[in-house]
């Protein structure tokens, strides 16, 4: 780390430029969301924030009429949170248990079953969305959180990652635990889960963001406005942009977008810390 001042200056200039490049669109969206729609319509996108931050955000958060449907942004954020958390937590739990069964128990068809799970990686959601819809509809789970989360909860990716991780855990740990009188359940809870913390954090981050950003599935599953997620909400606002001969709702759309991006950012920031700590702790 003994660099010349000059070199470190160059590095910083490059880094700062790169960051600006990434941040600028978000900033413009934020700045533009704090103006009135008339102002925005006349003057285009804004670099500097205006004086209508509380007005715009307050309205979209708490006032149903601000969005197209009869639902506040707060409710949509809550729905997205339920979907994201349910999605992430469910996937972590299910895939950990599936991987545990595949790696540590010798049962017939273990390998074929693993490859079946693995093969579902090849099928994107869109391919199986019609049959999935059919199943959920027949179970009467349309317009419910269960229907939103449950059909997506099995995760080939998660199972695969946990399987790889478990296989890297030394066999001696299992043997030591067996000698210490720990049954399969104890071993899983006392040894394997704590050792997987890093892995859990990583999968959780990824799955939360994926869940949060789900679009097609919630769009099909929900016809009730009260169950709209924020991502669908954004779409609805944009839909109304050119309808009804009004001045487009650009500031609200921007405000909604900004709000939609905050929770995933928070999750990444919080869990990344855990992720790094986990990495340091399992280091031998």
């Amino acid at each position, binding site marked *: 780390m003994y660099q010349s001042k000059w070199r470190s200056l160059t590095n910083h200039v490059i880094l700062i430029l790169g960051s600006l490049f990434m941040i600028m669109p978000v900033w413009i969206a934020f700045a533009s969301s704090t103006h009135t729609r008339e102002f925005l319509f006349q003057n285009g996108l804004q670099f500097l924030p205006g004086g209508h931050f509380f007005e715009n955000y307050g309205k979209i958060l708490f006032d149903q009429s601000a969005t197209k449907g009869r639902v506040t942004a707060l409710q949509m954020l809550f729905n997205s949170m339920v979907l994201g958390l349910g999605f992430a937590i469910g996937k972590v739990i299910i895939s950990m248990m599936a991987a545990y069964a595949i790696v540590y128990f010798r049962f017939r068809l273990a390998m074929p079953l693993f490859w079946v799970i693995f093969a579902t990686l090849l099928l994107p959601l869109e391919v199986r969305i019609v049959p999935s819809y059919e199943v959920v509809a027949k179970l009467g789970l349309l317009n419910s959180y269960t229907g939103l989360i449950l059909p997506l909860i099995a995760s080939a990716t998660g199972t695969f990652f946990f399987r790889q991780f478990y296989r890297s855990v*030394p066999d*001696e*740990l299992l*043997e*030591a*635990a*067996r*000698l*210490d*009188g*720990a049954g399969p359940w*104890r071993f899983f809870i*006392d*040894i394997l889960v*704590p*050792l997987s*913390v890093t892995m859990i954090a990583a999968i959780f981050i990824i799955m939360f963001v994926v869940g949060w950003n789900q679009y097609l599935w919630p769009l099909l599953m929900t016809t009730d406005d009260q169950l709209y997620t924020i991502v669908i909400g954004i779409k609805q606002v944009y839909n109304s942009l050119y309808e009804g001969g009004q001045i487009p709702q650009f500031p609200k759309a921007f405000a909604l977008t900004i709000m939609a991006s905050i929770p995933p950012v928070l999750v990444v920031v919080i869990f990344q810390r855990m992720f790094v700590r986990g990495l340091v*702790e*399992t*280091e*031998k």
Partner: protein
Amino acid sequence: MATLNLKQVEKTYANGYKAIHGINLEISDGEFAVLVGPSGCGKSTLLRMIAGLETISDGEISIGDRVVNTVAPADRDIAMVFQNYALYPHMSNYANMAYGLKNRGYNKDEIDRRVREAGTILQLTELLDRKPRQLSGGQRQRVAMGRAIVREPKAFLFDEPLSNLDAKLRVDMRLEIKNLQQRLGTTSVYVTHDQVEAMTLADRLIVMNGGVAEQIGSPIDIYNTPATRFVAGFIGSPSMNFLDGRVSNDRSHVVLTDGTRLALDHNVAENRDVVVGVRPEHLSITTPTESSIAAKVRITESLGAETLVYLTFGSKNEAITLRMQGTHTYAAGDELTLYSNPSQIHLFDQASGRRI
């Protein structure tokens, strides 16, 4: 504390590979038994069968007077120390040692008493709150032993516990293990491929090769009267010199490949093809006599207190190692005349490798 009994124990893997070919062994109460052999000889498999980590294909293993063939590892009342320590990395050393007791439903005070006591014995008291990764290799292995001690098991099983340590630490830990075992008087089975460890630790040594116990006995007996050529070559360092030869008509000599005659006082049939075994430390340099070996120096290794001389002998360039006290220097190509007392010459059958 208990005796450990193995009757005709066999292990055949699912793929048909037979790892253990019928081993009989009785380890008495408080005895320190060492299984030694080259890698792949089945010693670890045998230990793991005693622990219950491998199934027993045939035969019977009993601990105390209970046959444990189908008893789960945790219920066999044994404790094992692994080569890579197998400590739970996310738990403190205290928790590592307490885990087995906790699972067995001991109350907190009892667990605490036992862990603290083991900590004192192993000088780990200050380290109990740390995690394994904050300890050195030797300390980790002490924690692993602590985990075994707190259980107060009927037997300790050691699976090459010192292999991951550096040479100096290995010697220290070896003494510690020996001390500990004598102090606790717990029956122990110890697996190693290091014959020095085996010799120093064992009350009884089991030399294994290819899934068979080649010889069972006290270390000194095995050193003095190895039952097979394999055992003779495996125990002792540097290992024994082997030279092909044939017993003379009058049975007083063995004739080596180049015609050299070595005096014998063995009772052996005439004209029999034999392998002559002489330990490097039993050879000495002498003036040429009727019964001496003439060999050429290849390399000399000076270790300070002793010197190892590697020589070649005869037309077939058979290798001979000589171990001498003190420092000596020889140039490559120097001719030395070697002699061994007939009582220190071992004879093995050429075909079967058995001792004659």
